[in-house]
Structures are given as C-alpha cells and as structure tokens.
C-alpha cells in the first residue's frame, strides 16, 4: 500500500504496446496535478513499445521517485489479462486488480511457440491472492463506439478508486483524446465507471 509521507495512491497500469497505456496514465496524472497533487510516473518508451509487454507506474501525492516498490501498489489496472498476472507482484496484498478480460495473443502464441493460458485460470489464480474485478473492457469500448477507447473504459473503471474527482478526470479525458473521439471516450469512461461502482 502507498505509505504515508511517501505517496497517497500508487497505481500500476499494465498492458501491451499499442493499447494506449500512456494515454491512460496521462489522463490520471494530469487530473491529479489539476487538483494540486504532486505526481510521479514512469513509462515504457522505445523498443519495448512495439507490441511488447508494457507497464506504467503512476504515483499520486508523491514527491520522490516514479517507481512503485514491489507490493506497493493500491490498484493494478490491467488492459490485458496475462499482463495483469505478469505485474501482480507490484500489488499490495490488500490491493485490487481491475482487469480487461480480452486477451491479445503475443507472436510467440500466434506462431505456435507458446500457449496462452486459459482466461478463467488466470482469473482464478489472481482471485486466490487478491481482490479482482474482471470485465471485458474491449466489448464495452465497442459499445461506446470504438474498440480503441478501451483504455478510457479502464480509466473510468479505476476512477472509483482514485483520490481525484470524476469531473477533473472527465475534463482530462476530453483534453487528451483526439477531438473527433470525445463523445465516444466520454461514453467509454462512464461505462467503465459503472462497472466498478458499488
């Protein structure tokens, strides 16, 4: 868990290069700064971005380094199920996993070198150790208007946990997504938000 005097809220965002993890952490980071919090974030850039496994660290109310220690995160926001499991070690024991259940098969799987584990098995393993909220964010994004808005569905889902107001988050969604896609992304945000409500 985020420790007093170090950080208010520590969030890990995991996914696959190209899914929009950076935009997701930008929305959250920018919103927190608007609400006068100090923010530190670490991102995967460069070579690893090309379809590889990516992880962003976002620390709200933090004035130190951007890297969240192991077992330090309050929430693990995973845009892809196998990537949730890959970065679970960062999550505090009483932390929560919010996971999109739609898999992206790596080339090692599509070309038959490795097998992709059964989604239910991934979920049950995670559920044994942590609180898990799993849902198909990609389907919700399609319903909102475009599968690419899946990252914003996930931001909506985590909005119930963040120490940042919904209004500010929505303001940042509108500022950061391409202008033509604002309506779709606002819908995506609301849909994600309602999944984890209550």
């Amino acid at each position: 868990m985020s420790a007093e005097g170090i950080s208010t809220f520590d969030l890990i965002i995991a996914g696959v290069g190209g899914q929009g993890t950076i935009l997701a952490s930008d929305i959250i980071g920018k919103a927190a700064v608007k609400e006068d919090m100090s923010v530190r974030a670490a991102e995967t850039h460069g070579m690893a971005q090309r379809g590889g496994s990516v992880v962003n660290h976002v620390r709200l109310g933090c004035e130190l380094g951007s890297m969240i220690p192991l077992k330090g995160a309050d929430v693990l926001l995973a845009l892809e199920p196998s990537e949730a499991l890959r970065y679970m070690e960062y999550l505090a024991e009483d932390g929560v996993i919010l996971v999109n259940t739609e898999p992206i098969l790596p080339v090692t799987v599509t070309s038959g070198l490795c097998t992709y584990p059964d989604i239910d098995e991934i979920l049950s393993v995670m559920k044994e150790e942590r609180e898990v909220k799993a849902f198909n964010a990609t389907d919700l994004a399609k319903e909102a208007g475009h599968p690419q808005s899946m990252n914003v569905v996930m931001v909506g889902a985590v909005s119930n946990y963040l120490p940042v107001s919904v209004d500010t988050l929505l303001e940042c969604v509108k500022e950061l997504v391409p202008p033509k896609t604002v309506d779709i992304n606002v819908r995506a945000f609301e849909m994600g938000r309602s999944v984890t409500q209550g």
Partner: protein
Amino acid sequence: MVKREYMLGNVAIARGIVEGGGQVISGYPGTPSSEIIGTLAGMKERNFYVEWSVNEKVALEVAAGAAMTGVRSVVTMKHVGLNVAADPLMTLAYTGVKGSMVIIVADDPSCHSSQNEQDTRRYSQFSLIPCLDPCTPQEAKDMMPYAFEISNKLQMPVIFRPTTRISHGKSDVELGPVNEDMPAADFQKDLERWVMVPKNARIQHPRLLELQKDILEELEDSPWNVLELSDSSSVGIIASGIASVYAKEAVLKQGIDASFLKIGTYPVPEKKIRTLMENTERIIIFEEMEPVVEEQVRIIAQETGSDVEILGKIEGPVPRIFELNTDVCADVLADVLGLERSDVPADRGEDFDYDRCRVELPMRPPVMCPGCSHRATFHVMKKVYGKNAIFPSDIGCYTLGIQSGTVDTTLCMGGSITVASGMYQAGEKKPICCSIGDSTFFHTGMNGLLNAIYNKADITVTIVDNRTTAMTGHQPNPGMGKLATGEQTTEVCLETLCKSMGAGFVETVDPYDLNKAEEVFRRAKDYKGTSVVITEQLCVIDAKRSGIRRKPFTIDADKCVGCKKCVYLGCPAIEFDVEAKKASINMMCTGCGVCDRLCMFEAISEVKK
C-alpha cells in the same frame, strides 16, 4: 500562483532549455533522449535554431561551433552517441567555449532500449568537463538555466546526464521565467584558443587542469548538492542523481536515522563528503551504474586518513549492473543495518515466481509491426542467401529481425557494413548480406559502405529504407526531404549516393513485391564486389498516419492446408489454430499482402467490402 504542468522529463528538459535561453540546439535521436529536440522542433513559436543532425559527432560540432560565436547551444544524444562524438568532446575541453554549451547525454541503466549500460559520468572524468546529474524532472528543468550560466562563467561546456527514469518519467513541474536575452553570434579570432595544433594544445591542457579547482569550487555549493547531518546516527548515506530519490524513499519507509548527502554534480562536492566522513563511521553509496562517486569517496578517505567504512558497488553490496530502485536500496540498507524488511516477502527472486501461480505466461517480446516491410525484406534475404549465410545487422526497428534469423550481429550504429566487410576480408566463404536502416546509413553507415567498396568487399548491403527514423519515434532524416521542424529541404537520393561512392550494383525494390525483390537479391548475390539493394517501403506507422488505407486480408479456411508458410513470417496479424491446423488473419492486418503472395494454395485474399 506558480504554474505547474504535468510533463515528460524530456519535455521538462526542453522547457529548461527555453527558460535558459538556448539558441542553437542540435542532436541525433536515441532513446531515451529523443523527445527533447522533438519538443523544441514542434513548438509553434521559436526564437532558437533546432536541427536533427546526421549523427552525434556532427551534432556536437554544430553546437560547439555555435558556442564558439558566443551564443548558448545544446546538443542531445543517448549515452552511446557520445562514443561517436568523443573525438570533438575531448578537444573541446581544451578549447572551451565562448558563449555556453550543454551536452545532454541520456543514460539507460538496465538497457531498456540500448546495446550497453555505459555511464556518461566516466566521460566527464575522462574529458575533465563538469557534469550535472538530475534527480527528478523538476530538477532536470531547473538545472538547464544553471548549466548555461556556469558554462558561460567557466567558459567550458557542461555535460548534463539524465537517466531513463528522468527522461521518460512524468511529473508535475513548476515553470520558471524565460530568459529572452539572447547574445548575438560574434566569432572572435583567437588562434591560441581555437586552433588545436600541438603548440596551442600544450598551452590549453595545463589551463584545463588548472580550471578544475574553479569548477570544483563552483559546483560544491550549488543547490544540487545537499547535506543533511543527523546528530544521532553514525550512518551516512550518499546518493547521486535519481538514486537519491530511491534511497530517500527506502530511508523513509524503514524509518532509518542517517545522515544523507545528495549529489548532483561532478566533480563531486569534496568538502561535503569530508564533513559527512567526519560525522559518520559507515557510509553507504547509491548511484546509477558505475561506482564513480564511490571511487572519489575512497580517494578522499585515503587522503584524509579516514577509517570510515565505505560500502558501495566495488565490493558490494550495491549491484553494479542494472538500474537501482527503492527495493534494491531498501534491501541493501536492511542488510547492512540488520533490519528486517516486513513489506516484501523474503523469498522473492529477480523475477516473479510463476510456478506459485501455476499458470505459465507466454513471452511477449517486442516485435516488428503487422505489415512492417522489414519482415518482407528479411524473408527474401533468407530465401536468396540461405540459412548458412551471415547476416550482420545494425541498430533500428529491423534489429527485431533477430526473431527472423536475419540478425547475426549488432554492434553499434553503422556497424553492419563494416563487420560484414571484416568477415569477408577474414576469408569467410559463406555468403554475407548485411542490413542497415536509412537513418543509420546516413549516420555512420555511409563511411562503412565507402570502405567496403574501396577495399573490394564482396558483400551485399541491404538498406532497409522505411523513409524515417522509426525506432526512436519517426524523426526525419536527409533521405526524406524534411527538416526537424517539418520544413522542406533537399532530398538525398540513396541510390545516387551509393553509386557516387563507386558501388557497381545499386538497385531499389519494393520489398512487398516478393518476386521482384527475390530477383534483385539473386543478381546482387551473383555480383562480384559490393552490391547494394535498397528495399524501399514506407514505415507502416507513417503510412497509416499519412492516410494510406490498404484493405486487410483474410484466409479461406477451406483452402488453408495448415502449411504454416505465412505463420513463419512472424506477423502478429497471422494466427495459427493448432487443433484445427488452420491459419487465420486477425484485426491487426494492415494489408501489406505479403502473406498472400507467399501462399501456394490461394487461400489468402483481400477482404471484399
């Protein structure tokens, strides 16, 4: 109220350049440094000059020339780029500068996107040029105006060394005022200073050594070195750059009482280190990569006859490889001070214990994009030259061809053609076909090609020309007819360039056209001497951005016999169902059509709409 913005470390550094009144900014892209120039070149209003240079040596010399006229200049690169620019660097220390000059060199501990883990602070020691080492994006921004100031005061260039977590970290940053006072360029002839013939070098070298005292004095009490003494503890911690925030967090988290010296400059603040030594019995040192601070601390201990215990990287317990983080610092502190770490399980290893969760996760390495033309080029190269051929390669997206079996060596920028030549000259009888990207060819590949042609190397040089510097984020290069700022310029023709260097065989082909490409490569292979094949096809990311829309392809399951010929391309858009023994194409298809051209059963076709 002071304005605070959420920004990338490199954007903060760019802002620092603007605040400090930077006038000429040059650089070559390289992760994690690329966004600094990207940000400056993308600004709508500019009162400075900014360029992507063709390589780091060129970039450093451009910035040096500018600083010789009295203006403020900056050059940016990644750590390995400084090797390319080391020649002017070492002598620039002798000449110094007239205006001010900052050499930004971004280090990449853990090789997130690099071929080695070299530490730029070593170049600072080597060249006797001072170095600044920021601990946060805010400090990185704040250090820039300071760097210009001391560079001007000392008439010396200053090295500025962010690391990956600074450059690619994001943070709220408090903006400062912008220096609008721009000195005008006015070069003053001064042979003793600017012309490094032996006579003058013998004058400048002792001057440089003499200057070290002034540098040390200037940096010692700068705001970047902070000593906090504890009255109640005999433990001292020294941490530099980004390691200082990791160490600080570990100290806070474990409630450790210790004196703490944060270092942000090199040469290191000797007086503060002496004071710390006088007040402690044990000093633990945290710094990214090499034990640069530690060595200096040991020297000072020896000079002062201090018997303080020094713990760092030389004999451990701090690891000398890979990047540090809070956990590494906390582990070291717990170990040295005999504390227990209750926050993490004691048995955790380097990697997550997947056995514990019973599920085996598939590897997810970075790969070439769906429809990337390099994949097609590599397919044809392998077919024509054969499995036993040697495929030296270079640095760029195409290095990801390591999975296609067509990347046998990767040494450094431009090292493909030269390594290929050396293998041939050594008497290697296997066919040799190397690959190099367009931007890398302009960077340092050209010299290698000239050398190969001149010395009659019988090799094939493949220039995989995707019309951009893709891996680092699509920066323009001389082959594109476009400047960093987007302005039009002369477009350099690769084919003409290679021919003018004397290549007897130069042909350009679209790699998506597999048959034509195969035919060209066969003739290149038969050619006696250095042959050049330019496989030209726009990067798929750029193609998409420029509005090119190709129809995706699909596989007719009835016609697919499960031969896997398309699967072996390794395209992320092609999937194989092991049970049904059928291939299929997913949503990621960009319509390059290479798999269609490969299929012998006519099972693949464009999606009809």
